[in-house]
């Protein structure tokens, strides 16, 4: 059985759907495989946003401290992306992300991706289009969540 290259496996991730292969090859240079144990943190609120993740297996909870308890604002699973604070200054996380189950993911080095966006604006534009779609989807989901649809 032939094993998939990183760039080939990126093509199967919904976030990268439609991205030309040459860009997948390009960005895969910034990625490596990581894994997290159950309850381990992928990122912490306020800390430097130096990476983002595409979840391959498992589930991650995005959490905020609300008073003296921790509220889970969303869970993110297979094929989904965790983190976009690396995109805009001051490049710090706005929430914690914790592995609810054992998680395997692709970790993208944010400095590397930002540099590639600077170096090749066409790639940067493509990347931002994908990210904007993701952000709009999350914003829509959050709005629906806010209107309390089960009431």
């Amino acid at each position, binding site marked *: 059985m032939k094993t998939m290259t990183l760039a080939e496996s990126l093509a199967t991730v919904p976030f990268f759907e439609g991205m030309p292969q040459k860009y997948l090859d390009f960005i895969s240079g910034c990625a490596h495989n990581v894994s997290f144990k159950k309850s381990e943190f992928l990122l912490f609120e306020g800390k430097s946003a130096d990476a983002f993740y595409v979840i391959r297996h498992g589930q991650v909870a995005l*959490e905020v401290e609300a008073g003296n308890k921790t*509220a889970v604002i969303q*869970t993110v699973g297979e094929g989904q992306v965790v983190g976009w604070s690396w995109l805009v200054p001051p490049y710090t996380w706005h929430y914690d992300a914790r592995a609810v189950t054992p998680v395997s993911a692709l970790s993208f080095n944010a400095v590397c991706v930002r540099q590639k966006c600077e170096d090749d604006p066409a790639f940067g534009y493509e990347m931002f289009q994908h990210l904007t779609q993701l952000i709009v989807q999350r914003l829509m989901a959050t709005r629906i969540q806010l209107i309390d*649809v*089960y*009431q």
Partner: protein
Amino acid sequence: MIATASNPRVAHPMTPVLGHVRQRWMETDDTFTLELDVERSAPFSFRPGQFNMLYVFGVGEIPISISGNPDTPEVLTHTTREVGIVTRAMRQLEVGDVLGVRGPFGSAWPAEAAEERDVVVIAGGIGLAPLRPVLYHLVAHRERYRRVVLLYGARTPEDILYQDEVREWSSYLDVEVHVTVDRATRRWHGNVGVITTLIPRAPFDPKNALAMICGPEVMMHFTVQELHRRGVRSDQIYVSMERNMQCALGLCGHCQYGPSFVCKDGPVYRFDAIEPLFSVREL
């Protein structure tokens, strides 16, 4: 069966029969289930999705879906959320108390049209109650269907209805159950996010699927949008509509919905039949 002058033994559909509360229990903080023994002269049966008119004597009569098992229709089960005057009075009923019951009324979930297809059942909040009979049916006749998927959204983990059954269905290898809540603390290990976020990842073939949705209208609105985005057509989607009702016979006009009456043409509609009306706020 409807009463006729030539068949005086069958109750007139405007005349309630007596239902004795056999058991009652709370499902969540504001939602309760009543099991009724009904005094009937003929055997009772219903199709999943149908409802009864329940009359709390001296207070009022309201439509409530039948949420029990269609294979054991002699146990009449209703799950109700307390929202106002009649539902509050109904919650206070004790074992042995009596209600008026008329029904069953209305259209049913398309259990037969769903055979040989992937079936996606999507429930929001109390919307799981009107869908539970069809879930019982799908599980009991599992071999007739391809994939069976339940997507269920509730506000918080405490608002999840029928927790034991949802857990049991999740344990079946041939039923896919995904539950999500809007708000949770760390004690909850499941999904957090609105129900629409489950749809892109749910395992079904959009070309051959049939979706059944029940929940508040706003939830159904966004759910249909997401199903469309996934490639499910309006004629593959069924929704259950709620409107205030009185006669439940299509006579009084209280539940008029565009050109139809929810009590007899609904509550279950194929979505393409009501699509033009669906986004209209006031009709």
